[in-house]
Each structure stands twice: as structure tokens, then as C-alpha cells.
């Protein structure tokens, strides 16, 4: 049973994330506008080609990939921002408070996930306005579950990175050399199932299960695996990254 102090701490950490997000107008704009530009410009550009394996409009194929990307980037940033607090000293103030580190990290994670989900849902709404078909009520439910799982998994991954890095210098390196290739392989931008080699590699890509599962849930077409299987994989990933991320944070010394 959690005491009210711990709940207060979770709430404070959540509230702090939200306030900072709403106040930083530039971040608000960038995190929503960037994926939208991807969706609209890349989407309109590619829809003129016939791509084998897609029997739907490319923008609709593309939407789940962009939603995943938006949630992934935003959540990872939250996780890594622990590093920011460390550099600016605020982390010490938090660590010396009479609350458990577990509550602190839960609050932070919830805050980051909330922000990422707000962004994800805005893009989802826009995709629906642009005509992306919805497979049905169960599909919507699955979509929401997937978005939540993607958000938590990515925060966890960001936390792990934050505990391994000492400054922000290696952050662009990880984004460009790890996250971008994984995103390309995930079928977010094009179907990988037509090329057996890519498909085999994609099975080792965690992002593949996120994108493919979200696509299968939302539009019910053009997915490789049944969404429920992808969901199982992402759930396990989520538990692993969150556990390691929380553990590394609890071990951190200011």
C-alpha cells in the first residue's frame, strides 16, 4: 500500500513534467509539427507509387509508423531528461526528499508518457481526418493499448540511456546510429515483408513489433503478425526496459 506522501511525490513529478511541457512552446510545436510534416510531405510524395504489399493509400499505411515515431522520440526524451536535471542540480533536491526513488521515477514516467500520448493522439486524430480507416472498436482499444506500451517502453529505454551517459554529447549519436536504423527496419516507412532478408532482420527489431502491431490494430491491414502477438512482445519489452530503467535510476548518486 502506498502512503499519501508517495502519491504526492508521484503527482508532483507528473505535474512538473506537464507544466514544463506546456510552457516550452517550442517543444510543443516541434514535437507535433515534425511528425506531421513527415506524414503529409513524405506521405503525399510516396502515394503516387505502387508499392507491392500495400493495397491501401500510402498515407494510411504511413500513419501508424509516424504515431510510433512521435511517441518514441518524445518518451525517450523524457527518460534522458533525467540527465538534464542532473546537470542542472535539480536531481539532488529530488533525491534528498523523504520519498522513495521508485515514486519519483514513476511520477516522471507517467508525466513523460502522458505528454507522448497527447502528441500521439493529436497525430492519430489528424490521420483519421485525412481518411485513415479504423478497423473497429476493438481495433481502437488495441491501438490505445499499443500507444501506452510504446510510451512506457521508450521512457524506460531513455532512463537506461540516461544512466549510462554522462552528458548529452552521445545523444545524437545514439539517435542516428541506433534509433533511426531500427525505425527504418520497423516497416514504419515502407513494408519490409517483400524482402525476406529485411523481414528476418526486422524480427530482431523491437520497433517492428510496435509499428506492425499498431498498424494491425488501427487499420487491420498490411500487418505481418497478428496484433495480439506483437502486443505480447511489446509488453515483455516494456516490462524489461521499465525494470532496468527504474533500477538504474534508483542506483544513481547525485
Amino acid at each position, binding site marked *: 500500500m502506498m502512503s*499519501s*506522501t508517495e502519491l*504526492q*511525490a508521484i*503527482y*508532483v513529478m507528473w*505535474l*512538473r513534467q506537464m*507544466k*514544463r511541457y506546456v*510552457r*516550452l512552446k517550442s517543444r510543443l510545436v516541434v514535437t507535433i509539427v515534425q511528425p506531421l510534416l513527415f506524414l503529409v510531405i513524405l506521405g503525399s510524395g510516396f502515394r503516387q507509387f505502387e508499392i507491392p504489399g500495400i493495397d491501401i493509400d500510402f498515407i494510411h499505411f504511413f500513419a501508424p509508423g509516424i504515431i510510433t515515431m512521435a511517441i518514441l522520440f518524445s518518451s525517450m526524451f523524457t527518460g534522458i531528461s533525467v540527465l538534464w536535471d542532473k546537470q*542542472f*542540480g*535539480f*536531481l*539532488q*533536491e*529530488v*533525491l*534528498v*526528499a*523523504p*520519498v522513495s526513488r521508485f515514486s519519483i521515477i514513476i511520477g516522471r514516467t507517467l508525466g513523460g508518457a502522458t505528454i507522448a500520448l497527447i502528441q500521439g493522439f493529436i497525430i492519430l486524430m489528424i490521420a483519421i481526418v485525412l481518411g485513415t480507416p479504423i478497423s473497429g472498436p476493438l481495433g481502437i482499444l488495441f491501438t490505445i493499448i499499443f500507444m501506452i506500451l510504446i510510451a512506457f517502453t521508450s521512457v524506460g529505454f531513455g532512463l537506461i540511456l540516461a544512466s549510462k551517459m554522462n552528458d548529452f554529447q552521445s545523444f545524437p549519436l545514439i539517435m542516428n546510429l541506433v534509433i533511426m536504423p531500427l525505425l527504418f527496419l520497423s516497416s514504419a516507412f515502407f513494408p519490409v515483408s517483400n524482402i525476406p532478408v529485411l523481414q528476418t532482420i526486422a524480427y530482431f527489431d523491437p520497433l517492428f513489433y510496435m509499428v506492425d502491431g499498431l498498424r494491425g490494430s488501427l487499420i487491420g491491414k498490411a500487418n505481418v503478425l497478428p496484433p495480439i502477438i506483437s502486443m505480447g512482445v511489446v509488453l515483455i519489452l516494456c516490462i524489461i526496459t521499465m525494470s532496468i530503467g527504474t533500477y538504474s535510476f534508483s542506483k544513481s*548518486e*547525485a
Partner: protein
Amino acid sequence: MEIIKTENLTKKFKDLTAVDNISFSVNKGEIFGFLGPNGAGKTTTIKMLTTLLNPTSGTAIIAGNNIIKQKDQVRKSIGIVFQEPALDTELTGRENLEYHARMYAIPKNKREQRIKEVLKLVDLEDKEDVFVKNYSGGMKRRLEIARGLMHYPKVLFLDEPTLGLDAQTRRAIWDYIKKMNKEEDTTIFLTTHYMDEADYLCNRVGIIDHGKILVMDKIKNLKKSIGNDVITLSCNNMKKLIDNLEKKDWVKKIKKYDSHLTLGVEKGDEKIPVIIELAQKLDIKIKSITVRQPTLDDVFLSYTGRTIRDQEVKNPTNLPPRFRRRKT
């Protein structure tokens, strides 16, 4: 009554012993200062006492609770103002205090009132809704002091409270510290490498160097221990003069440095002619001679063999990068 008591507190980082077997105690209601140069182990001691670092060996009791076994209890009873600012600059001053109050489980009805109280104490009432990023260095420090006091801590730790602040602001901060010690009956443990700060604020100081406490006493007693007056003189053939002065029973303390020597004596102005006469008899040429009341600088010099300023000039690279930036 003892409110802080440490026993053989030690912290080692790989092959560096930052804090070496220190034992001391601080009484309730006191303003106690740790005085020492950068890298002496002051911050490491504070980090151990505030549960941010686990000691390698030894332990400490704060307000009746063990810093290793009863971390949460200790955390509830202390407040801290870190050396580096630890505020969320994207939030307003009031929000920083409010979040702190929630973390320390101050009930809602008391929260408002307490925020008002602490803001008043540091004269920030009219700036409460300004974002902290727009605060000056002195305002930030004041807000941190206010925040440290929010939850009625029994002990407030201040790590270099006036580092990087201008003379006027320092003075104001000192007065706030004195005020809260008196009005809130908070015990204060502070670290500093400023002699004037220790002199002005502290009832008692411990001089710490290379992780060890060299001496600990009331400032008055420390000064007395080196004599009521200090005579500083430079001359040729210092050794000969020392040999002769050492035989005099009115010389309480004598210490030789590279270019000068200091004597601790009573009634210093009457001793100057005596010394000059003695030097002439020995055919020693005195280049300069002054007499003054002993300062903490003299105490520090006499226990460590160097001034804090000397050390900073010799090892400027020992300063952490952030410290260097803030000094400008």
C-alpha cells in the same frame, strides 16, 4: 544537546580518501562551520550527512537517526542548500516551494501559510510568480534557503552559501542565515572557504584539510590560541632571530614561512620595540614589521601552514569547471 554526531566517518573514491575518519558533534541551535579549501572534503561530508552518498566506513546520527539505516527519517529532519543551484528554472519561485512542500508532505492548509512565511524571511514576496530563470544569483540563493526551511528542518545544511555572490548580496544572505537561526531555532551546518563568512556567522568552526579535521573550537578560542596579537615581520637571517625569540617566554607561538615569520604575543605594540632592539643586537636587519589582532586567516595559516588563497593560486585547475565559471 548534540544534534549531529559523527563517528569515524570516512569516504573513499577509488584511491582518493576524500573524508578521512572524522568524528565531531554539533549542538542544537548552533551555527557550525566547516572551514577549508576546495577539495578538503567539505561537500563530501555534507553529501554523506544528507544521505546522498553512503560512507565507506563510520556513521553519523542526525536528530537521533542514523544516516545509513534511517535515511527517510534523516531526510525529513534536514534541509539543504546545495553548492550548485538545485532549482527548476522553468517553474516560478512559488511553484518550486509548493512542489517541495508536497514532497515533504506538508498538509495543504499549512502549505500556503508556510510559503508566505519563508518568502517573507528572505524578502522574495513580490517575486514569487516570476520564473526562476529570470532570478539573479542572489535571489536564487535566497529562494533555496527559503525552500530548505519549508518543512521546519531541525538542521539546515548550507554548502558554500555565498559562493559566487557579490559583497552586498553576501552580507544580506548572512543576515538571513542569522535570522533563521534565531527565529526558527534551526541548527545550521555550513561549509565555506571564506574566512570572513565563518568569522561573521559561526559560533564554532572545524578546520578541515585533506579530509581531516585539524582543529575544532569556538572562533574566540581559536584566535586566542595563537596569541592576543600577531606580529608579522620579515628580515634577513630569519633563523637566527627565531632561535633567539624562541627563548623568550612572552612569545606564545612562532611560525616561519617562506618570506616572513609570525609571532603570537600579548600586548603586541609594546613588543615591537623589544624585537627591534633584539634584532639590532644580533645584527639582523628587519625589513618590515606589523602588529594586528589575530584573524581566522592566522588560525588557518597556523594549523595548515598555508593560506586558502595560496592554495587557490597554486592549483587553479583543482576547481571544478562550474565553480570556475561562477567565480567570474
